[in-house]
């Protein structure tokens, strides 16, 4: 295995320009900055509507340095598939030099990926396009005002899973998007988190070195949607990993590798209490979430064949 990257390996050159209108402290902005550092410069980015899209491309200006294509909310993967197919045809017709490497990346939010864009994503993965799909998951439809999505976790308040006499936040469990991608037998899937940037950089670089369909699932803290002070974005992202709420791993050709081992976990309460969207939770609901996390940790450890994520420390 090659040497693990460190913070010193992140390129200084910025490929994502300031002046964008993402909120103070937006986790997705940190993700986009470092994803673009890891992409070859000719890579065409196809972006679904959502926060990142509307805040980075206020006409007539853009924050992107790569060729970039806006597509609708539901079809980033379909648009990217068309772009990838067009590159092949242009090469065949001699309108693009056969040796010229032009890669394709699709980026969508959780709503645009777990929900409305899932059919387009499934088609892209099934047809085997050479595309990296990146979903930045802020766990709700943030751009339109914090409506729940299939990625909203159990217990979270959103404007469509309110907290009152009848409802107590989201009552369904988050969809397993990595499991959905794996069911298409893709060569590479990975999870990334903005608090662990060398890991993110290494995974995006690796994904771009692999031919075929790939999916990266990115943890994306959202200041107004998760209800916390903007300075805490990285603190929350780290706590997600330290509690096992989020696990950094990759699965390459069926082999799982946990890239951020956690020998001793913190109780999930430590993660929940940092965010206003979980403020209403009862001890019983918190215990339920702890049980879900324990289950996921046991599942990942089983796939890893050893205990890479340890027990909750007393």
């Amino acid at each position, binding site marked *: 295995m090659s040497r693990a990257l460190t913070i010193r390996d992140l390129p200084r050159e910025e490929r994502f320009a300031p*002046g964008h209108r993402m909120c103070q402290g937006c986790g997705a902005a940190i993700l986009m900055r470092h994803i673009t550092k890891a992409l070859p410069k000719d890579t065409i980015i196809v972006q679904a509507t959502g926060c990142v899209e509307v805040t980075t491309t206020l006409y007539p*200006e853009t924050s992107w340095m790569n060729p970039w294509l806006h597509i609708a909310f539901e079809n980033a993967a379909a648009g990217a598939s068309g772009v990838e197919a067009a590159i092949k045809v242009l090469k065949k017709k001699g309108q693009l030099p056969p040796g010229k490497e032009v890669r394709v990346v699709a980026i969508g939010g959780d709503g645009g990926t777990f929900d409305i864009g899932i059919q387009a994503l499934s088609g892209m993965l099934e047809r085997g396009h050479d595309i990296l799909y990146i979903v930045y998951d802020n766990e709700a439809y943030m751009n339109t005002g914090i409506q729940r999505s299939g990625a909203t976790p159990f217990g979270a308040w959103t404007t469509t899973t309110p907290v009152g006499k009848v409802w107590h936040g989201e009552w369904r469990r988050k969809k397993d998007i990595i499991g959905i991608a794996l069911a298409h037998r893709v060569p590479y899937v990975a999870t990334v988190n903005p608090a662990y940037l060398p890991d993110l950089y290494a995974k995006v670089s690796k994904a771009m070195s692999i031919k075929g369909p790939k999916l990266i699932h990115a943890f994306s803290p959202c200041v107004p949607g998760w209800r916390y002070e903007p300075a805490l974005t990285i603190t929350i992202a780290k706590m997600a990993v330290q509690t096992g709420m989020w696990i950094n791993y990759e699965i390459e050709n069926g082999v799982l590798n946990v890239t951020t081992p956690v020998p001793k976990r913190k109780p999930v309460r430590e993660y929940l209490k940092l965010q206003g969207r979980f403020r209403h939770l009862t001890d019983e609901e918190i215990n339920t979430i702890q049980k879900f996390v324990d289950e996921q940790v046991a599942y990942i450890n089983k796939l890893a064949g050893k205990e890479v994520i340890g027990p909750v420390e007393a």
Partner: protein
Amino acid sequence: MSSRLPSWKELPIGAVILEPGSSRRYKTHEWRTLRPVINQDKCIRCRICWSYCPEPAILEVDKPYVTSTNRRYEITYMVDYDYCKGCGICAQECPVKAIEMVPEVR
């Protein structure tokens, strides 16, 4: 902010944006109520604030600096006050507390 929007006759076909990274023309400093100030003597050049800034608004420049205790660094981290929105992530994450968030006064 661009002073005048182009007329439809001046727009490229498809209204594509031809200048990469042109959002730099839009300065976001007015969003800020707190201003990060880096203490260059305390800073250990760890790169953490630079890496986590969402804008990006922390510049990593090849500018030497000699601290009051005569330690020489080849790199200086500087806040780009044109774009800094004052989120406070840099100050929160700095391992040696070299960044202070001070009220912005205009």
